[in-house]
């Protein structure tokens, strides 16, 4: 494939657990533990996983909305993790974000024009007249109309608001858009519209997406490659087709077998995992070993590395290769 736009290496985020009056630290929560992946220009990388697995944290670390504890984030040749706050602010022009909740992500006291114009003002783009024109142009691009610019967010439906959120992310003409569960808060029928809009925009504007979601169907629809996260670790990373056709990691298998299939006669091969997600990453071994039906002694001892077992298909599991 083409150039690597974003390269994330050994990204970690540990939140300290504090208690008491002076906030004494006792242990930490490993929200993201040693995650590495690449995103190529023009592709969509889907990241799936259940809630609390660190997928949003990963997205926010790339934007430096959260400071990584460790690791490197290379975007377009620039190391983001060590940029000063000032330089990072400027770099955000090229990386934008679409948020999950379209009801919360737009300032209720600003009109749509103000919301869309702000990224331009912040990055010093265009004159007042040019900005107005751009706002109207982008409103049309996302399927709204120029006259909507005068309205306030509460006068729109969820789908329309998400379109505004997408337009805001597009204003600065970014290279990478991190979409953090952009359709989870929307009705299913509206989800399809927004997803199709995002795909169309990707083609027209040559965008690269990191698409974070917990809905496997949605991710399959939009992604070129998919990464599966469990408890802060990336357990499988593969081309979308390959992953859905032949999931390798036991967790991915279980996850996929739980996706409903619109065919009542379909007999699925159910992979059922027992127990609940552990509160935090086990101190030793694979994050999934507490629930894995195939767990061996090795799984309890060593952390499996993400290894490419087939072309374009990597998995972090002792059952394959390694061991």
């Amino acid at each position, binding site marked *: 494939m083409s150039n690597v736009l974003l390269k994330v290496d050994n990204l970690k985020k540990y939140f300290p657990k504090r208690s008491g009056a002076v906030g004494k630290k006792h242990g930490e929560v490993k929200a993201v533990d040693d995650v590495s992946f690449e995103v190529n220009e023009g592709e969509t990388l889907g990241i799936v996983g259940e809630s609390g697995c660190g997928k949003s944290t990963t997205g*926010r670390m790339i*934007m430096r*909305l959260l400071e990584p504890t460790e690791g490197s984030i290379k975007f377009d040749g620039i190391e983001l993790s060590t940029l000063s706050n000032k330089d990072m*602010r*400027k*770099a*955000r*022009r090229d990386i*934008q*974000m679409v*948020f*999950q*909740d379209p009801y*919360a*992500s*737009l*300032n*209720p*006291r600003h*009109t749509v024009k103000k919301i869309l114009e*702000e*990224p331009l003002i*912040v*990055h010093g783009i265009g004159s007042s007249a040019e900005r107005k024109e751009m706002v109207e142009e982008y409103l049309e691009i996302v*399927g*709204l*109309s120029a*006259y*909507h610019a*005068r*309205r*306030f967010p509460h*006068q729109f*439906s969820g*789908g*329309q608001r998400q379109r505004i*959120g997408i337009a*805001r992310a597009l204003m*600065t003409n970014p290279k990478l858009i991190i979409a953090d569960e952009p359709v989870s808060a929307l009705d299913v*029928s509206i989800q*399809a*519209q927004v*997803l*199709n*809009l995002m795909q*169309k925009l990707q083609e027209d504007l040559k965008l690269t997406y990191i698409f974070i979601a917990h809905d496997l*169907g*949605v991710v*399959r*629809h939009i992604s070129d490659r998919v990464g599966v996260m469990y408890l802060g670790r990336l357990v499988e990373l593969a081309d979308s087709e390959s992953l859905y056709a032949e999931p390798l990691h036991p967790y991915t298998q279980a996850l996929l077998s739980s996706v409903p299939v619109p065919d009542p006669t379909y007999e699925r091969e159910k992979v059922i995992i027992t127990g609940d997600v552990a509160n935090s990453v086990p101190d030793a071994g694979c994050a999934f070993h507490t629930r894995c039906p195939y767990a061996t002694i090795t799984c309890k001892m060593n952390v499996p590395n993400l290894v490419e077992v087939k072309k374009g298909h990597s998995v972090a599991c002792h059952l394959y290769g390694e061991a």
Partner: protein
Amino acid sequence: MSELVSKSIDMTSKPEKAVGPWKEAWRSFKKSKSALVGTGIVLFFILLAIFGPLIAPQGINDQDFSVRLAPPSSEFWFGTDDFGRDIFSRIIHGARISLYVGFSAVVLSAIVGCFLGIIAGYYGRWIDTIISRIFDIMLAFPSILLAIAVVSILGPSLQNALIAIAIINVPNFGRLIRSKVLSVKEEEYIVSAKAIGMKDSRILWRHILPNSFSPVIVQGSLAIATAIIEAAALGFLGLGAEAPKPEWGKMLSDARVHLMTAPWTMIFPGIAIMLTVLGFNLMGDGLRDALDPKMKN
């Protein structure tokens, strides 16, 4: 999923007028009768303060010893005090003093309080700890006691009473806006503002402040009422306005020796204080219901 065809949403409806959050608040404010009554009273006293000297039948210090402690009559509507001064005229002039002290003290403390509160709420950590603890210390004293202490340090005058009232109100505003900022800063539109690449200062003043401000307006209108009472209390104790000034609290204090013989010297300034405070309270309650429905009860 892929079979679903994207259709453009029906946008043909006529462009409607944009209704902003402030306009909406005004709509619901108008619905409350008591809020309108309160606003009416407040407006009445504001007009009285502005045009007072034109309305007042007599000057504030026109003394006439022939009519000392005269009861209310057609000539002296509210009677006269022990110097033979017209109480009606003095109350009209007093409106200016009371409103001036109320407004200025509240505006001053709201500015300082909001600034400290926003900084504490937004930056958190040790800055928050320091500012919050100072607020706690100030709130540990009964407010009037603190005001007396401040005035005795600065020396008794109307100006210093105003400053004292402003100081004792700072922690109220500070804590109020701090707690609001704590919740607003977690909102996704603030995260998105950061993601866009905004500076902290822009986020603070353009996004967090406007969204945290409505409780301040409510608290402000109620605090004016308290400030007027506090100013009157300081005046009553002789720590506020100096002798000839027709400050309502001072008038009450001067009148208390004549309570039995000439009760009108006390009743009318008292009613004036009560009415203004009532007006601001009613208006404040209405504002609260309109701006922040969640705060009801």
